[in-house]
């Protein structure tokens, strides 16, 4: 018998239909993957099962959990189910915990609520489950606050909260999307073990086909609120009967075409970074001894040639972004020099940096956060123009913005819109337009596609490749996503604890990593080909 049965589920918020006739079943001990792009209704399906829908949402159809009619249950019945029989893990571990309560209080709270256990007993059980999710007492006493933990550790706490009472069903909504690949692999392992130990059903929601393929027994693919295909993971992905399944699989493995490959050593280096270091003041432990500085970047050297595409990969917190900030002259190194087109940019006054800033632009990860919502696109995209020697007139400015928008596949009419009128992918196009309007020689892109859906991601990668070919722009991609490095980079640098531990041609480093850090990254990175092959073996 199935643990969860969703039949013909439809959902509307106000007059907007969100889900149309969704079908889904999960048996005890089974892992079902729910895949789809943003807006496809994955999270809403999960929230319907938890009955935590926003106001004005109306659900029709049948959702049965363990014989209980979820849509018809009273709020009291739902409170008894939530956290006890159904647990849920959310995407963003940084904000999923209450900042003013200790982790012990937060884990024990659900236990006390459901079992009516006393404080001491609940805390003992909280201790046990925290030990189980890999947060041992010695380093993580119950009295820790969330802000004292890293993202991966916080996600473990959230999993502990969800699994404290050994639920029959766990819903994990993009549980690893905000984490780097090594942490992702660890969290996925933990979830897999919990499923096995407790014969728990797991609904794993993700936009990442490779992650779901590695984990799930069966797959359900959602598109615009409708199930397009469902079935055993191996069969669904090997046969790819539905065109959308094929589209998703192709987009996840997309490698943009770059007909003119970069020839190493063909020109004078564009950017030279020599023995650069960055210390941050550490925490003072004693009044009498000076604080030990924290070395975020340690003796790093690299060069980028014109039109070369370099990927800097590493786990979160390894110093990639600090290095990028110093290259962009947004942060001052404590040691070493950076030369751009042969000229040192370290230690120069702001005014003297203008030419360098003009030729060096940046694209950030979050297309939502990097625009002022109250300014029109024309002004946003024209922002870097103040770096030009001769200020363009109003008409020239509009002309330049129109041209830049055209280059990234947007129209001149988009100039008078506001950022909120664009989708995530379009917004990332806008930030690329902003980056190329001054005709830069180097673009630093910090996780430029990790917030995007796979199909959009493929388009943006194509755009990067096209601009590289057409305008000869060199790239420094900063990413923890090895597929981006594989798709886009001529050369890969692996960074670990502030140091560059490995460098070489992209294919060499990614296929035959030599350093321990690079091997860990490659082993942890989800790979769709590998995952499908493994599933085929398992499921025959």
């Amino acid at each position, binding site marked *: 018998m199935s643990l969860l049965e969703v039949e013909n589920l439809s959902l509307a918020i106000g007059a907007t239909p969100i889900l149309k006739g969704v079908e889904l079943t999960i048996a005890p001990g089974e892992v079902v993957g729910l895949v789809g792009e943003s807006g496809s209704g994955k999270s809403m399906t999960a929230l319907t099962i938890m009955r935590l829908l926003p106001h004005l949402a109306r659900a029709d159809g049948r959702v049965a959990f363990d014989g209980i009619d979820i849509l018809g249950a009273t709020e009291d019945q739902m409170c008894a189910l939530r956290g006890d029989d159904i647990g849920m893990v959310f995407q963003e571990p940084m*904000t999923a915990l209450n900042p003013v309560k200790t982790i012990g209080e937060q884990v024990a709270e659900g236990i006390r609520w459901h079992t009516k256990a006393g404080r001491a007993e609940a805390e003992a059980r909280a201790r046990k489950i925290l030990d189980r999710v890999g947060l041992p007492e010695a380093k993580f006493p119950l009295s820790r606050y969330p802000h004292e933990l890293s993202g991966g550790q916080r996600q473990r706490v959230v999993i502990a909260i969800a699994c404290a009472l050994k639920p029959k069903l766990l819903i994990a909504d993009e549980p690893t999307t905000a984490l780097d690949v090594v942490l992702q692999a660890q969290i996925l392992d933990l979830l897999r073990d919990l499923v096995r130990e407790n014969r728990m059903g797991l609904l794993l929601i993700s936009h990442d086909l490779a992650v779901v393929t590695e984990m799930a027994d069966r797959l359900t693919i959602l598109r615009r609120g409708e199930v397009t295909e469902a079935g055993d993971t191996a069969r669904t992905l090997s046969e790819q009967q539905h065109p959308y399944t094929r589209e998703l699989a192709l987009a996840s493995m997309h490698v943009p075409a770059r007909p003119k490959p970069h020839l190493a050593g063909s020109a004078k280096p564009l950017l030279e970074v020599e023995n650069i270091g960055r210390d941050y003041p550490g*925490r003072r432990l004693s009044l009498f001894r000076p604080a030990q500085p924290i070395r975020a970047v340690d003796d790093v050297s690299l060069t980028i040639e014109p039109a070369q595409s370099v990927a800097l990969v590493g786990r979160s917190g390894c110093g990639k972004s600090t290095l990028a900030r110093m290259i962009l002259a947004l942060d001052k190194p404590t040691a070493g020099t950076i030369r751009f087109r042969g000229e040192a940019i370290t230690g120069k006054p702001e005014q003297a940096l203008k030419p360098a800033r003009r030729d060096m632009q940046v694209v950030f990860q979050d297309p939502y956060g990097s625009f002022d919502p109250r300014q029109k696109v024309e002004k946003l995209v024209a922002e870097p123009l103040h770096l030009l020697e001769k200020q363009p007139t109003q008409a020239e400015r509009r002309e330049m913005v129109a041209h830049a928008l055209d280059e990234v596949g947007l129209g001149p009419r988009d100039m008078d819109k506001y950022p909120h009128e664009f989708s995530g992918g379009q917004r990332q196009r806008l930030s690329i337009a902003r980056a190329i309007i001054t005709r830069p020689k180097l673009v630093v892109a910090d996780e430029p596609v990790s917030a995007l859906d796979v199909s959009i991601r493929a388009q943006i990668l194509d755009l990067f490749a096209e601009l590289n070919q057409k305008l000869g722009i060199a790239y420094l991609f900063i990413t923890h996503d090895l597929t981006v490095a594989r798709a886009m980079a001529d050369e890969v640098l692996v960074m670990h604890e502030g140091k560059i531990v490995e460098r070489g041609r992209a294919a060499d480093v990614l296929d035959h990593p030599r350093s321990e850090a690079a091997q860990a990254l490659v082993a942890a990175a989800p790979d769709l080909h590998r995952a499908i092959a493994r599933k085929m073996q398992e499921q025959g």
Partner: protein
Amino acid sequence: MTAYLLKRLIIAALTLVLASMVVFAVMEILPGDPARLMLGLNASAEQVELLRDQMGLNAPLAVRYLHWAAGLLSLDFGRSYTYSVPVIDLVRERIVVSLPLALIALALSTVIAIPVGVFSASRQGRAGDTLAMGAAQLGVAVPNFWFALMLIYLFAVWLHLVPAGGFPGWSAGIWTALKSLLLPAVALALPQAAILGRVARSALIEVLNEDYIRTARAKGLPYRAVLWRHALRNAMIPVLTILGLQFAFLLAGTIIIENVFYLPGLGRLIFQAITQRDLIVVESIVMLLVAAVILINLVVDFSYAIVDPRLRAIPGKVRSGFPSGIAPKQILRAVQRFRETRNRSRGRQ
């Protein structure tokens, strides 16, 4: 934690010194010679000069400031020009009326505002919320002296429950004294409660949209438990900020209310002192009010640290004295909203 508190303490002390300089400077610039004022119009220039010497008014500015400041520290504020008694005696006799009044008003406004804010936030957009916020809007818009008059009419003139004005003194018994402070405290508290209620509501609504509220709901806690256990404490930071700002308004507000209720408090004393050009009394009371506001804000800063563990743990990351993360944004927004509502209500007055 200690580093944070120490830093706040030092900042408060510096603010106090700076404020004393400003108050002293303003009094220096104001026209009017205290010696001439004390001796009357018929005094000769020599007599005035002699008194100026005796009062130390001819000493250099810095010396006079230091003398005055040293006096403040030992609670010697000088002598009133009009009453010829030490200012401290005047203040002592009045502060036992004003301070309890302000504190009762502050407590009342908190006790009214927080439940109203919680009530409204949990029924966002529904009839109860609209009604409560409509009432709050009214409370913000109506000036407190009008409230005072209505309260007097209802409770004193009509129902004869409390006296219409005056203060019998604490020697008349605590209950009798409190009874005469009750109406003024309510009149002071209502407009403040209206503002604070709106701030509490918007802070709560913001917190209720946070991810950790969803986590708490997913644990199986009912909505009400989530509201009180998880949301309220997080919403306290902006509420505390506004509370600190409001204390200044409560102190200033007593000037009007004490006049309406005929209470012998600091507000009336400063009012009288201004009309009589008794500058030394004005100066002393202003300084006292400044000190009170700084003290309250220090208490607010300390309570941030109690509410938010992030402040206790990472002194290095605290820049403005506000907790890192969501709080500064919330506070700025709350302060902005507070100013808007206040200005709107002033416009109507």
